[in-house]
């Protein structure tokens, strides 16, 4: 085990996969010598050369669509959107091309493309540079969407994404880049679509993604002092969704809180809530609660933006409310 940051773990995953497979290449704005807008690709061009790691114009439609074209013809592109919000800019390429090309052409192709997209709040980046748009891809049949919350997950999920024969959108959280954590030293792969129980508990389940996993853990810590055992489940993605792990947890605790930075409408929390309401109704001892971002665009002010996403207190309150229900 080595302690490293989330950003460093992504960098390591890229380096390992570039090293392992000559068909892997990286393209995006400023990913080359500059090392990426957030420093995540630092050193990769120097090490692997300009053929393997290179800058592109500000052309997100090409970036993703070009990635599809390269993937269809035998390569394994890893493209970087500078902000996850730009998923909307390249939505047709992601939603209608990357996701559907294989299916609509009768299964004759595979599309081993990875789209890295930094999401989440970043200290005043505003309504078009702070979103967590994974919910926009919930219905993108053909696509996988993963969302690491720790350095180890960042490493293992990205390596699996690069090796997948399917297009994978890898949404990394900008606010977590500096987060340190233990990472296994050897080859570390995490299967796509498998949730991780980040903390075991018996009284209430919090299903949370990326930054909210950490707030959920903080809430769990506080509540533990009161004897309340919170289970924190990190689905590590939204498509596929590991409903088995979620269901098992809810069947144990009987109480479900679902939490992400994105607003509830159209978010993965709604998906989890709906699924549980379909499949575990009788286990529920309290109403499901979605503790999610406010249903507003994200304000630019770095003070105010914090109020657009759930706090640790919001989660604590929700847990208490679930436990005191009826």
């Amino acid at each position: 085990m080595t302690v490293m940051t989330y950003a460093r773990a992504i960098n390591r995953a890229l380096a390992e996969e570039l090293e392992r497979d000559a068909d892997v290449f990286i393209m995006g704005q400023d990913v080359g010598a500059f090392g990426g807008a957030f420093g995540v690709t630092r050193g990769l061009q120097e090490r692997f050369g300009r053929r393997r790691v290179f800058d592109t114009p500000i052309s997100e439609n090409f970036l993703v669509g070009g990635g599809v074209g390269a993937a269809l013809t035998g390569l394994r592109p890893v493209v970087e959107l500078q902000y996850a919000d730009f998923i909307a800019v390249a939505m047709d390429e992601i939603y209608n091309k990357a996701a559907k090309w294989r299916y609509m052409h009768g299964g004759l192709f595979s599309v081993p493309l990875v789209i890295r997209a930094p999401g989440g709040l970043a200290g005043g980046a505003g309504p078009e540079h702070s979103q967590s748009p994974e919910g926009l891809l919930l219905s993108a049949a053909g696509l996988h969407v993963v969302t690491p919350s720790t350095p180890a997950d960042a490493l293992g999920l990205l390596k699996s994404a690069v090796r997948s024969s399917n297009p994978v959108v890898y949404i990394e959280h900008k606010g977590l880049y500096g987060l340190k954590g233990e990472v296994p030293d050897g080859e570390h792969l995490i299967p796509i679509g498998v949730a991780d129980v980040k903390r075991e508990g018996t009284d209430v389940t919090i299903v949370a993604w990326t930054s909210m996993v950490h707030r959920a853990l903080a809430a769990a810590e506080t509540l533990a002092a009161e004897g309340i055992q919170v289970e924190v489940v990190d689905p590590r993605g939204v498509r596929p969704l590991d409903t088995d792990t979620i269901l098992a947890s809810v069947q144990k605790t009987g109480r479900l809180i679902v939490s992400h930075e994105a607003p509830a409408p159209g978010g993965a929390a709604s998906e989890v809530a709906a699924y549980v309401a379909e499949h575990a109704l009788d286990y529920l001892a309290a109403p499901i609660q979605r503790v999610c971002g406010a249903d507003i665009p994200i304000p630019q002010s770095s003070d105010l933006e914090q109020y657009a996403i759930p706090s640790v207190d919001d989660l604590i309150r929700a847990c208490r409310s679930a436990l005191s229900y009826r």
Partner: protein
Amino acid sequence: MATRDTYRGLYTGMLRVATWEQRLLRMIEEGRTSGFYHAGRGQEATAVGATMPLRRDDYLLYDHRGMGHAITKGVPIDRLFSDFLGFREGTTGGLGAGIVHIAWPEAGVLGQSGTLGGSFPIAAGAGLSALYRGTDQVVLCFFGDGASNRGTFHESANVAALWNLPVIWLCENNGYAVSVPTAEAISVAQISQRAIAYDMPGTTVDGMDPIAVYDAVSAAVERARAGGGPSLIEAMTYRYRGHYEGDPQTYRTREERDEWEAKDPLVMFPRRLIDEGYADEQWIEATRISVSEEIEAAAATALQGSKPPVSRIFDNVYA
């Protein structure tokens, strides 16, 4: 550069395409296929003339107008019928066909984007891939005058020129995007003029003349293979049928159609073959018969196919 074999090949190719389409239209009339179809009749010289210069391992992104490009590139025509019939023997394994979505990787046919302009970035990406892998493959990307106004063209043309990608952008300018005439949609007189904006060669050719198209594309292919980068070729052509089957065609006159029908490559080109000594009446007739037979045989094969089970729709979502 066009030899006798080229002339004859182009004629045979156009005839195959037109005969195939004619047979498909009969299937549509008979109610055997409910797919949307955008007939290519009239544009064979462009589709076939532009595709013939390619090697089998070159890549093709065709567009929704006719199947001439895909047929010429090597999609087996019985399978193509099967696609439209919704039979499992089709390239899509029974998912159906219509607006798009036939492919044949072994002949470099990468498919088509149903959202117009979606092919541009994919073509650039395939070109990038050829360069990356160090092959001398080229990519031929077809699009209509209408699709040329999608922003994806700009992004893709820029990187193709910037990185010297082996891509031939082939615009089939048939004067209309559904009902909208080019003059009401495009701010320049000729789409080829847009090549200047990317510093790549741009040229306009007579899209009713298969040789003109063949020569222009051959030159562009040669250039691309040699590392000379992309080209934009605009072929002036015309569709004889409606945008879709059933189109009222209120937007154009009978006279205009007559004018273009006088240039029908399937009428004019065989005459030229004879006039210029590349073939005689007998060869023409023999070709007509053998093509008819080929198409009939393919249709017969296809019609023996079968619909897939409903469970087919759940296959191939993921690899």
